[in-house]
Structures are given as structure tokens and as C-alpha cells.
């Protein structure tokens, strides 16, 4: 059954996306405003279930690449995601029949709604991460062998750069350097897919799931103890599966430094009453690994989400500060990330940790 998104749903969708962003993805405030305006102007958008994708589709993924914190100052024009579609069609000489999000975490979960509303191109209910992760080669599109190009990136001047690179890691380097040269943020159309590729590579249902999640968090506004049960039920009925309460406590230390353009750091959380040893949370833009007493209790690609204990609002990693009372949830990732091929690029070792991934349900 298809799900319709109206301008009144956008705030909930953003909340759900910040929850699934596991600390990364940046503040979606500006995108939220843009999408709300677009949906007011052009009307609601129906999400297309992946199962309903016709056989002769040309699916293209669109979104923004760069530094979310820079875009709070240099705002997007607001039409970039339309521009990338026009230019892509002109370049490859074919109509894009369907679009899909990079990631359901942060701004990119809502940006494609603008294109879907304004251009009336069906938006597939799904994405390439089911969460947020920092680099292009970590998207399921790349993992499933979809070529990243032909791809193009539109910058703030309205200028456009075209890419023809077979390798996702090389493409990631190229596009990130372009973003840096062009004010910190570019919009791309990339990873074009046939119907067969799209069915294999897209994680289905994640956009409508983020909306349901955001709604649940609004309707059950209250402390994390009360929200846990409805959250469990929701995740249980999805591809994510298990949601596990990992820890409740107070942030007693947070340190961050920059390594290779990423925010790397660690948060230490102490339990109330000292019943358990402290939790250590490793951060590389996203929350990647959680340990208690030296034992891993959850790790990437499974999701680690931090919420404010009193309100259950998800907390972005740049907003973590000493003294916050927080609850940490661990959540299974969809099966797309559990394959051997996927784990090569998204397991703890891919981020420089010296241990193998163990699924959360076995921890």
C-alpha cells in the first residue's frame, strides 16, 4: 500500500530521520522548511512501494553531498534537486522514471520530496542506507555493484560537473573534493539503476518507516522508558527487527577531534546509581560502536541511537554535551547490510576498529 506525504508530515519525517541517522546527517531544519513549502505549493507526494516498480524503469538517486553545518549559513537555492534531474536527462538522453533517496538519515531523507512534488516523478519508498553513513561506497547501491556514474553535481552557482567513474570509492573522493571547492555542498544525481538493479539494491520501505517512527515519537512524547515498548513493536514489524535498550545514564565525558575530515570522538556515559560500568560510545560522524565494561554491546552497521531520556528526542552527535540524561538504543540493520560483501565496507573493521561484526541479537 502506498503512503502519502503531506506538508504536515514533514516535521515527523525529519524526527524519524534524525533517529535513524544514529548521530550523523546534520540538522535537517533548512531542508524541512524547503520541503514543507514545496509540498504546500505542489501538493502531497505518494511514495511508490518498491514492489510496484515497473520493469523498464530508469531509477536515479538524488541528494546532497558535503558539510551539513556549512549549509546552515550558505543556504541551498532550493531548486538544485530539480536542476540535477533536468541536466541528467539531457546528458543521458533519457527520462528519469523514478527517483530514490541516498539515505534516510538527516536532510537527504526529505530533499527528494521536492523533486517528486515539483516534477511529478514517482519517489520510491526506500533508500540506500536505512540509516546515515558517511561515504558513497557504503550505500547499498554501490555494495550491490551499481555503477556510480553517469553522475553529475550541481553547485551553488548553478554550474554542473559531470562524472564518469566506475569505482564508488574514486567517485566519493571526486565528489567530496568538488563539494569542498564549491562552498561545502553540492547536489548530485547518481547511481542510475535499471529496475532489476533497483530491486536488488534499494532497501525498501524506509521513508514511510521514518515517517511512522517520527509520528510515534511525537504521539508518545515522554521519557524513554515509556516509549521503549511502542518503539520495540514498531521496529519488530520492520526489516530492522530487534530494538534493544542498551543503556540509560548521564554523559560524563565527550571529546571530539578531526581526523581526515571526520568528527572522531568518544562519549562516556555513566549509569544512574552506578549499577553497570560506564558505556563508551565511539563516534565518527555517526555513533559506531558501543561498549560496556570493554564488551561490545552494539556496532556498525547495526544502529546505535541516542535519545534525550526525558523527551525521547533523538540527539545529533554534535549536540551531545556533558550532563545530558540519555538513553541509548541498539537496533538491528536490514539484511542488506548483513551480507559478506556489505560487511567489507560497513563493518567495524572498515572504520578502523579491530574486531569483527556481531549482530545485535547475538550480543
Amino acid at each position: 500500500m502506498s503512503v502519502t506525504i503531506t506538508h504536515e508530515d514533514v516535521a515527523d519525517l525529519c524526527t524519524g530521520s534524525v533517529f535513524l541517522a544514529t548521530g550523523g546527517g546534520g540538522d535537517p531544519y533548512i531542508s524541512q522548511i524547503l520541503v514543507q513549502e514545496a509540498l504546500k505549493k505542489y501538493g502531497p507526494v505518494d511514495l511508490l512501494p518498491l514492489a510496484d516498480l515497473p520493469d523498464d524503469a530508469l531509477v536515479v538517486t538524488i541528494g546532497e553531498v558535503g558539510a551539513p553545518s556549512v549549509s546552515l549559513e550558505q543556504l541551498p537555492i532550493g531548486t538544485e534537486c530539480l536542476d540535477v534531474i533536468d541536466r541528467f536527462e539531457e546528458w543521458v538522453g533519457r527520462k528519469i522514471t523514478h527517483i530514490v533517496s541516498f539515505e534516510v538519515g538527516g536532510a537527504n531523507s526529505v530533499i527528494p520530496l521536492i523533486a517528486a512534488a515539483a516534477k511529478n516523478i514517482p519517489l520510491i519508498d526506500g533508500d540506500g542506507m536505512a540509516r546515515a553513513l558517511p561515504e558513497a561506497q557504503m550505500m547499498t547501491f554501490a555494495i550491490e555493484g551499481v555503477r556510480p556514474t553517469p553522475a553529475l553535481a550541481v553547485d551553488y552557482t548553478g554550474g554542473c560537473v559531470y562524472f564518469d567513474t566506475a569505482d564508488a570509492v574514486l567517485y566519493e573522493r571526486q565528489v567530496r573534493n568538488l563539494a569542498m571547492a564549491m562552498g561545502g555542498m553540492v547536489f548530485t544525481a547518481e547511481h542510475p539503476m535499471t529496475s532489476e538493479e533497483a530491486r536488488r539494491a534499494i532497501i525498501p520501505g524506509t521513508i514511510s518507516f521514518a515517517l511512522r517512527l517520527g509520528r510515534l515519537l511525537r504521539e508518545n512524547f515522554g521519557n524513554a522508558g515509556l516509549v521503549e515498548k511502542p518503539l520495540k513493536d514498531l521496529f519488530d514489524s520492520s526489516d530492522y527487527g530487534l530494538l534493544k535498550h542498551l543503556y540509560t545514564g548521564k554523559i560524563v565525558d565527550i571529546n571530539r577531534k578531526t581526523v581526515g575530515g571526520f568528527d572522531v570522538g568518544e562519549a562516556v556515559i555513566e549509569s544512574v546509581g552506578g549499577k553497570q560500568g560506564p558505556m563508551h560510545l565511539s563516534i565518527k560522524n555517526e555513533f559506531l560502536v558501543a561498549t560496556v565494561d570493554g564488551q561490545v554491546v552494539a556496532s556498525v552497521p547495526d544502529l546505535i541511537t541516542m535519545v534525550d531520556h526525558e523527551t525521547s528526542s533523538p540527539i545529533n552527535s554534535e549536540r551531545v554535551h556533558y550532563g545530558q540524561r540519555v538513553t541509548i538504543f541498539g537496533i538491528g540493520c536490514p539484511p542488506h547490510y548483513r551480507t559478506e560483501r556489505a560487511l567489507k565496507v560497513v563493518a567495524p573493521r572498515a572504520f578502523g576498529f579491530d574486531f569483527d561484526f556481531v549482530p545485535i541479537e547475538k550480543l
Partner: protein
Amino acid sequence: MRIGIDVGGTHTDAVILDDQKVIASTKVLTSANVRDGVVNALDEVLEQSGIDHVAIEAVMIGTTQFTNAVIERRELAPTAIVRVALPSGELVPPMIDWPDDIADALGRNVYMIHGGRTYDGFPIAPLSDEEIDEVIKDLIGSGIKHIAVSAVFSPSDPLQEIEVAARIQQKIPDARITLSHKIGRMGLLERENAALLNASLLPLADKVVDSFSGALADRQISCPFYVSQNDGTLMSAEFAAEFPALTFASGPTNSLRGASLLTQLNDAVVVDIGGTTSDIGVLQDGFPRQSNVAIDVGGVRTNFRMPDIHAIGLGGGSLVLDDGSTIGPQSVGYKLVTEGMVFGGNTLTATDITVASGAADIGDATKLTGLESSVIETAVAKIHSIIDAGIDQMKSSRDPVPVILVGGGAVLVSRSLETASELMRPEHSGVANAIGAANAQVGSETERIVSYRRIPRDQVLEEMTALLKSELIHAGAEGETVKIADIEETAVSYMADESTRIRVKMIGDLSFGQKGGS
């Protein structure tokens, strides 16, 4: 001798300080014209102290007049915004997320022109003479005189804002223009919101600053006077008339500063216990710790420097339920003096519990003889555990910290607190705001996003500190006392160029005859 004055919505407080010593203090009603209330307060403290007006070296005033005007949507001038940013931000125009009532109060006079800079200083687009002329023509046509100007990354490079403003000023000589980089930090929407609110408050600022100087003139006090800002520092009267929005939230800041001065503690947690809530704030190096989330002023998102205040639902009027195991957040509030049991009422409040425990002598304790001792004990323990939890959430290390108790409800804390290494209950805490105002220093901060690979850190710091020092001297500081108060550096995420957001804050002593303050 200095006079500190706090002009609140209800009360105007005044103190006379001789260095750190409180010589006189008073609390009078705020008058509708502000001026009479200030005159009354001055009369009271001058009479109490017997000090001659010529002995007064400086007057410092804190006020909530401007915050209240925004919240109540009154006395706001029709205001225009000129944003220098196109093509960026085309579909996210200024005021897009404002509540209708306040957007209507200012009018929706929005102009967007080409220009601005990227994070690394590259021009987004050149300024266009035709566009600027067009805006000026339109402004002349509409007769709007209050104008805010914002440009992308103006905190790093303000030249375009300055140029556009100069062009407007040339054609509209009586225009009053607020430049966004003068008033806010990174975050274009929030910064231009602050500039808009500020520009719209300029007529009220003239009026308020005039009534301050009028009141002082009435009492022949001719020394300079200053107005306190939300970060606990002062600005000159002329500066305040130009930047009234910088007074938002100066109330809690002055209260924290006052607590610091009264106790001589620079690092402590301050708990201001009122009738319904307790406000918990943190002093770091004698100044309030600032909040790091977007602050709403009357429904408008801003990124003002505001103290990080944690309000908990516990005060002298909090209801005591469930045999003492539940206290607050419901409260009888200002009706405590009629509804509280010690005052002959029928509602068991936190104040009643404190009296029953023998920790305070308020009202008639005989009204409480029916209370079971187990209820009293449970409730007293609960009061302390609520405050402990609140302090724990705010303090900046895991060790116990000095705690300063102020406000009318401070008697509620009668035992030691787990989170407190020591408990201080300073005298004169009822006029802590006025004391805080009287002791403020001048301070200023600036922010940039830079890549140290391109510009060495030393050079960045040198440029920033030189700029701040000249700003501070302009605001009334003595040059040789100006020093760096804080340097904060954060990585800009997802950038491979190791870009860093650097924020520098400097403070200095005010230049007046005999130096006060710490």
C-alpha cells in the same frame, strides 16, 4: 561607588556598591514610562546610603523591556530585511518560519539580492548595482526607515553587508540599519532574525535609553551608564541604543553574575528557587555557561548567546502529594501567601514542609501540628533529591561543586546536597540581578570558519583578537585590561579540508575612575 539597576516587568531593583560591598538596596514597582520607577529606586538607595550623587562613578542597568516587547509584539517598528545571498537561499527567504503575528508586526518587507561568500571566502556572486538601486527605490517608496542587512558568511567577511548598508544610508540618510554580523553568529536564518528584531526595536531603544538617562539627569548623576547584555557583559548606553536585542535574557545572566559577586565564587552552580520553579545555571570563570541550542525569542529562532538554564518544577509553592513522595510541578504560585497552610490555607506546600521540619520560621507553624513526621521526612528528602538531580544534570564535572542558593525559596534546602561540595546562601540575594548588572565587564566575541592549512592558526587568532580589541575599546573597555576569555574550536563535519569553526571571546574592564569588579 556604582549603582546597579534591574528594570523588570514588575519590579525595578537598585543597589549601591562600594567596590564589592552592598551599601544600599531597594525594590520598587516598575513604572509604565520606566523613568519614574528608576527615579524612585535611585531616591531610595541614595537616601538609604546618604551618599552624594557626585560620588557615583558609573551606573549599570539591566532590563527585560526589549524581550517583553518582542514577546508581546508591541512597539516594534515596520522593518525591512535585505539579504545578500542570491542565488543561494532563493527558496528559503527571510522570515519564512516566523509566526504570523510578529511577521505582520514588522511587515513582510523582504529583499534578496546577489552576493555573499562561501565558507572559504570565495564570492558567491558579485554585488549588482541595479539590484541595490532597485531595493533603495522600493524602500524610499514604502517609507521604511528600519532595515536589517544580512550576507552569507558575513561573520567571516562583513564587507558586503557594510557596502550595501552604506549605499542605502547614502540615499536614505535617516535610515537605521542593523548589520547581521554585528549581532549574531554562524547560521544565516537565525542571524538575520536577530538583526530584524534588533532593527525593529530601535525606536523603543531610543525611548528606554532616553528614560534611563533622563532619570539619571533628574538626580544629577552625570557619570557614564551602561546596559547589560545576555552574556553577562556590559555595553555603553550608545551601543545599547543601537543593539537593544543584545539585552535578551540579560535577567538570568545578571542573577548568576550577582550570585558570583556575592559569594566571590567564579565556578559554581547557582540555584534560584522561586515560587513555582527553580532555575539552575552554571558559573564558569565568573560568567554563565552558555546554551548551545537555538533560542526562541517570542517564537523567532535566534542564535543569541544565552545562559544555559535548566528550569525544574520545584519552588516554595509546589504542591506536596502522595504522603510527601510527590512534590511539584504543580504549584500554588503567587497564592502561596493565602493558600499555604502556614498562612492559614488548606494546601500543603513545600514551604509548609520546610517550616514543619523546623528549618524555617515562616507564617504560623501551629497550623501544621497534624502533619505526620514520616510525611515531613519523606517530603524533605524528596525536595533535596529533586534539587540534587537538577544540579547533577547541569554541573560540568562528576565531582561535587560549590552551590549558591538564591531566591525566596532558598530556605527549602535545609540539609547538605550530595552534588554540593559547599552550600552558600549569600545576603542580598533578592537583588542579585542589580548586583550582577553593577559588576559586569565588557566583552565581545567573533567566529570564523577557516582551514589552518591555508591560513596559519596564529594569523587567524591575531586577526580575530585585533578586531575584538578595537570593538571592546569602542564599547568602553580599557585597552590594557582586554584579554582572551575563551577560544572554542570545532571541526566542520564531513569536510576533508580540516576546516575549523573558531570562536574567540574577549573581555575587559570598564574604563572609569576607580575600577570595580573581580
